[in-house]
């Protein structure tokens, strides 16, 4: 075995051309993912958080090459995915799978569970017996029973459908699963069941997860490391414990402050973050967070900060991270 990471992402970029008007002229570019670096070790969970539209799903798809990146490199299990031929890429895809937010939309309603879960086996040419045995094993693994195999998706509850989606993803023994908001559409009690299932499967099968979520408390419980995304870029990455105890980027601070919690400390009353996510068609110059940042100074408006290493596995894309922290975030707002 090597000590190389399971997944290595470098400078990944997905830009979408935007066309408007009757002639569908190109009017600009959405920089959905704009130069992302990531690494993931075997069995590790990296969570991706940020407001909707910041590029989380696009990044997840591009990592799996379900979406062709406009630039950058993804290496999985030591192989550069961009350099692989069709057959090799298909082979790599057995080991990297995806679970979606909406189990309803991601399961073909006309297929029986056994065909949904067993589909991957067909593509990879297993015998009928092998397939039936495999489906049974997978259903048991996700807490469903063998008789569920003959049923159709509409006969199941939301939580059960998500279990079917998970079974499908696990068919060919992946080492890496992108979970795109896998419990966001589920009721609280069912959400907890599915979260527990994902943890159990990770322990049993040694899975690594890229876990996309907008629930910061869930991520704190679930992830080993967290990457915070803003307008297509990672603005902070840190071990989960460090991120919550000691957020370094003003955006991370704001997200944490805005998250309601059971302690009921009136988080929303801190009026943490003004304004909304700017249009990704016209990102602000300099630090893209500056229009909403209480600490922005002239330099922030002119120069884009790099993702700077702050030690202990923490990096943040902010010129003033140390200064802000030194004052406990109480630094006088720069433009008051």
């Amino acid at each position, binding site marked *: 075995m090597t000590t190389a990471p399971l997944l290595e992402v470098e400078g990944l970029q997905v830009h979408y051309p935007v066309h408007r008007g009757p002639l569908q002229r190109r009017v600009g570019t959405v920089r959905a993912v704009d130069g992302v670096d990531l690494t993931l070790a075997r069995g590790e969970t990296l969570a991706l958080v940020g*407001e909707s539209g910041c590029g989380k799903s696009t990044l997840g798809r591009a990592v799996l090459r379900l979406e062709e990146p406009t630039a950058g490199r993804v290496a999985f299990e030591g192989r550069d995915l961009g350099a692989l031929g069709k057959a090799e890429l298909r082979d790599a895809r057995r080991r990297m799978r995806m679970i979606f937010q909406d189990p309803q939309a991601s399961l073909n309603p006309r297929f029986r569970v056994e065909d949904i879960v067993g589909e991957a086996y067909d593509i990879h040419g297993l015998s009928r017996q092998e397939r039936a045995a495999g489906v049974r094993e997978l259903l048991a693994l996700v807490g469903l029973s063998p008789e569920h195999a003959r049923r159709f998706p509409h006969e199941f509850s939301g*939580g059960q459908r998500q279990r079917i989606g998970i079974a499908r993803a696990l068919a060919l023994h992946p080492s890496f699963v992108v979970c795109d908001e896998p419990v966001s559409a589920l009721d609280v*009690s069912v959400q*907890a069941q599915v979260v527990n299932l994902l943890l159990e499967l990770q322990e049993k099968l040694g899975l690594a997860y890229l876990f996309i979520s907008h629930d910061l*408390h869930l991520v704190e419980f679930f992830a080993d490391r967290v990457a915070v995304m803003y307008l297509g870029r990672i603005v902070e990455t840190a071990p989960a414990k460090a991120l919550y105890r000691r957020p370094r980027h003003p955006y991370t601070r704001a997200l944490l402050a805005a998250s309601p919690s059971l302690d009921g400390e009136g988080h929303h009353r801190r009026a943490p973050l003004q304004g909304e996510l700017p249009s990704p068609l016209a990102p602000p110059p300099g630090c893209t967070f500056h229009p909403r940042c209480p600490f922005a100074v002239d330099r922030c408006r002119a120069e884009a900060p790099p993702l700077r290493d702050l030690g202990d596995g923490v990096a943040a894309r902010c010129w003033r991270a140390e200064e802000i922290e030194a004052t406990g975030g109480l630094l006088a707002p720069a433009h008051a």
Partner: protein
Amino acid sequence: MSDGAPVLAVEGLRTSFGAVRAVDGVSFSVRRGETLCIVGESGSGKSATALSIMGLIPRAAGKVVDGTVRLAGRGDLRRLDDTSMAEVRGRDIGMVFQEPMSALNPVFRIGSQIGEPLRVHRGLSRREAHERAVELLAMVGVPSPAQRALDYPHQLSGGMRQRAVIAMAIACEPALILADEPTTALDVTIQAQILALFEDLQDRLGVAMVFITHDLRVVAEIADQVCVMYAGVVVEQGAARDVLRNPLHPYTQGLLGCVPRAGAGGTSRRLNAIPGTVPSLAALPQGCRFRSRCPHAFARCAEEEPPLLHQGGDGRAFRCWLTEAAA
């Protein structure tokens, strides 16, 4: 702050959709300046409760079959005719729903929609209503309100649309705001802004609020009182602080255990999930509705449905045989 007679008092409310008893005996009251949260999983009857209060249960689908809905100064809303009820909806109760587009007409400008109730119920001229609409947009934190008033709904972001709906809801200075999952579709950052806005409006206008959510963390942030609903009934209610700190009903306890937090489950790293799923309202089990999922169920729970038991004089109540023994 929360003294005096209730602004809204709901008593024994029952609403059926055919054989489905979606609301099966719900009672609560809310005072001036106070926030009451109704919390529960999907299908528990939260929206049906809200629609019943507003007289908005679609006639073809179902009806309110029992109970009273008393609004201060209006008496029992169930006795009002359609005209008076329309007036109550436009003037006395401001409504905010999860999806702001359900309250906005896509072909009219924002400002004219906010001004509409002022013209209908307050007799303002078109121009006065427009000026007031711009003030209201400013009040709910919409930047460049004069320009936004001229926009159509699709030109605004989700968060800004919800602010516009709130402006419309408070236009006639209602006594009550009824909000059904108003922040569920929004990012936490925008949710925090909207929750702060609601509280600010309450402080300034003294309005009472019924706020429906599925998120106990939102309850912890904003509620004075809480009703926990399960399969059509309130299983526990009382002061939010008491219910969240010392839940008496096994479902409330279970729901709190499901909320993710750092270090939950210790080294085993598991959430305390509630097993199973919410039962179908069309086929409720006999006895306690929570029985199939309850870790404490015993013989009596299968025989008889527990009534709402009151504890103390502070409105604390719960529906469980076990806690009757403990109380």
